[in-house]
């Protein structure tokens, strides 16, 4: 799965979690830009991504996931491991 594919898959997940169809996720999107991206929605986002890609994140990786670019890198890394 390419990183572009991952980004495309993330789009609807973000729309669903933040209940906002107008969000356009890019590699540069981060938690500061989306107002509702707080600790609670972060967990819901992480759980949704884990389920969609069938991967598991460590607690020590949660911080990297606050930035979509790093998030995609990490997802790609995990998908390759499998």
């Amino acid at each position, binding site marked *: 799965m390419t990183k572009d594919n991952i980004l495309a898959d993330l789009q609807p997940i973000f729309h669903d979690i933040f209940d906002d169809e107008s969000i356009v996720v890019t590699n540069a999107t981060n938690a500061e830009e989306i107002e509702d991206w707080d*600790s609670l929605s972060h*967990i819901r986002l992480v759980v949704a991504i884990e389920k969609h890609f069938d991967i598991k994140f460590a607690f020590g990786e949660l911080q990297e996931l606050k930035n979509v670019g790093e998030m995609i890198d990490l997802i790609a890394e995990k998908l390759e491991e499998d």
Partner: protein
Amino acid sequence: MLFNSYEFLFLFLPIVLGGYFFFGGMKGKSRLANVWLVLASLFFYSYWNVKYLPLLLASIGLNYLISGYILRYRKAKMKGAAQKAFWLGIVFNAGLLGFYKYTDFFIENLDLLGANLPLLHIILPLGISFFTITQMVFLVDCYEEVAKERNLIDYALFVSFFPHLLAGPILYHKSMMKQFADEKLRWVDWENMARGFVLFVIGLAKKVIIADSFVKYVGIGYDNDTSTLTFFDAWLTALCYMTQLFFDFSGYSDMAVGLARMMNIKIPINFNSPYRAYGIIDFWSRFHMSLTTTITNYLYTPMVMNCKKITFPKAMLATFSAMFIAGIWHGAGWTFVVFGAIHGMGLVVNHVWKKFHFWMWRPLGYALTLLTVLIGDVFFRAKSIGDALNMLTAMTGANGFLWHPKVADFLNNHLAFSLESNPHIYSDFPKLAFMSAILLVAFVPSSNEIIKKLALNRKIAWAVGIILAIIIMLIRDKDTEFIYFQF
């Protein structure tokens, strides 16, 4: 050793930096630079009291040993054994912290319930809360196979690295190990040196010029009979402490980040203009940020993830519990329990407000945030719950008003009021520091923003030099400890 002392500024820092870059530049042997930093950090720690050095070493050694087992079992797919080793490590760390930090508090409360046990008067070893939490987080990272690199020297450096050893910022193994392994970082980079040094001086100024100006006035208010406080002096004392706490701790954190940067090591920033926060959630994303991140990722998230179905009430319970535990982590005492509860409630109310899109007038939101923090800080500083309640009672005006004589005379003479006054409660109030602090908090960008954009030229060099000279004169007769060293 304190960052704001002559020993540190004129001996320790230049020698350590010199040694670091000297060894770092040696071909094939530049790893000696890390050994040098470990030795320097252990000396830094022992300078306060060498008696506690074995404790620090034992903590580092045992955690390293246990983490080795966790990783080995994980690799061999022996999950059960890894889990056992992991919990052994967690119990060891929690036990160590529990013994040193909470034993006397526990005995005190048993005595209140009728037991008659003598207190042990255990002295809290410096930095223990920080090096314990750092290593507990590290064990979780090992168990989840995020922390894989094995090197005793680098591990010892990760825990003991002197800029962060005593009061954070809390570091993560993965990002530090990458940096400690990179030999290019052991060469002088003048841009990092300059920006790191300026950040260090800004932190030093926050501590020595501003925070320390409040020590006396805050002490008069909190450490004497708090039942004699009246409206104005209670408010001024509470506001002074809130200001002191921020300038003291963010000053320390700036110094830590600046010192690390001078050695080309990046450690996370800890403050981002917290008193400009809108809401308690926002406040904690700007105040002691490394603690918030740690608590969120390693305490709150596991609690929420453990629920089969994540619901809003469960998440709120986890939010409150995590903040409550963070409160008690600060210190053993009922005041810290209340501090944790106030902020836990603040977070929950804030989340509920957001979820249901309740209306809020923006200026009121800012004011309520600061007021919540102010009330929390009263408990944070007061020596007992009784003292804190006295302070808050006085702040409501229930103990009367004693005006500044000038104001009282003016109003009494011109408007026929009969206001009481008392010059003594105003005589030690640090007017200048207070006014400057308010202006800084309200209008000046955070120190990390300043450092990012700072043009490095001769004018700035002069300004920094002059500030440093003033600081050096100010610390001549008093180098005061940092508030967070007691935690």
